[in-house]
């Protein structure tokens, strides 16, 4: 068998368990927008166009609050800033590919796709292995993401508003944020952002969210370097 095909099948195998875990999140990405009144076809189009779950839910939440377009886009970008880091790490992996393929592979970047590819291969691996493995990972993930959304849309259009399906949005975010709170500085960042978000609720243009996120990031970054210095000092005085 061709090496690229073997790599493709290895990718298929490695992403299979992840797709199973993705089902509830994928369904909510489809159900939340229609539960908030979005046209089902538009919801499906959004799922294809953005193809990033957390950003989609943030976008839905803000559009339901009639937040102006620039603030929605700014928020989606902040939620997706991590893709810049992935892109920087993946650039040497994709360096030998044609420009159209670079764009396609960039569009398909996900947290799991990135993590699995960089864990399996070094950047100097043969391009056909990288392409094969990455396709095996990301093509089925894309299909699964869209299929889950279709299921979610079907559910979301049939469930009455009194079921409060929109509440799944903050629940997903709660489940996503906890694993990211790995240090004291992270907890302080989350706490600061939460407080600011509450007290800036009435800020014009719903800029409270961006303000809260910015304050949280600054608090986290400053405390991170402070704790690091304290640790270094304790090390030298011992």
């Amino acid at each position, binding site marked *: 068998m061709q090496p690229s095909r073997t790599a493709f099948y290895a990718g298929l195998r490695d992403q299979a368990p992840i797709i199973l875990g993705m089902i509830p999140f994928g369904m909510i990405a489809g159900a939340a927008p229609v539960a908030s009144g979005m046209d089902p076809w538009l919801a499906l189009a*959004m799922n294809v166009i*953005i193809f990033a779950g957390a950003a989609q839910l943030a976008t839905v939440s803000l559009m339901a609050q009639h937040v102006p377009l620039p603030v*929605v886009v700014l928020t*989606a970008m902040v939620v997706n800033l991590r893709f810049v880091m992935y892109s920087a790490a993946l650039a040497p992996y994709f360096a030998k590919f044609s420009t159209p393929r670079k764009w396609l592979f960039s569009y398909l970047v996900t947290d799991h796709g990135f993590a699995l590819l960089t864990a399996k291969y070094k950047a100097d691996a043969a391009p056909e292995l990288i392409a094969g493995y990455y396709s095996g990972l990301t093509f089925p993930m894309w299909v699964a993401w869209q299929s889950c959304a279709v299921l979610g849309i079907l559910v979301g259009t049939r469930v009455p508003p009194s079921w*409060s399906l929109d509440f799944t949005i903050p629940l997903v975010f709660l*489940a996503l944020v906890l694993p990211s709170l790995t240090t004291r500085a992270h907890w302080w960042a989350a*706490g600061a952002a*939460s407080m600011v978000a509450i007290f800036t609720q009435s800020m014009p243009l719903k800029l409270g969210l961006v303000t*809260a996120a910015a304050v949280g990031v600054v608090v986290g*970054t400053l405390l991170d370097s402070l704790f690091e210095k304290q640790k270094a000092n304790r090390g030298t005085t011992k």
Partner: protein
Amino acid sequence: MTINNDWVTVLTILACGVATLLLRASFVIWHSKLSVPHWFTRSLKFVAAAVLPALVMPEVLFRGIPPGDVVNYYRIIAAVLALLVAWRTRHLFATLVVGMIALWLLQWLRPF
């Protein structure tokens, strides 16, 4: 509040899609012209920890407030329960189930 199915919504979705694609493509396409400053890498570690709670707060506290109340108590209780489950299990599905069932029970029983 509901989403309007108008051209503003279509345009917002397109803009978010283009922005997301550009972030994903940034270094893959323009790696020779871009560089990441150190402070950016450092702050990026805290983006998820700051943005997600900032998104959660208004959704939990201020959505669907019953007339006469300042915050939505049912959603706060359900969210706290879900947070406990998320903290103990680190499991998305369990968090969803507990949070939604708690909210449904509260909305159905209306204990206060």
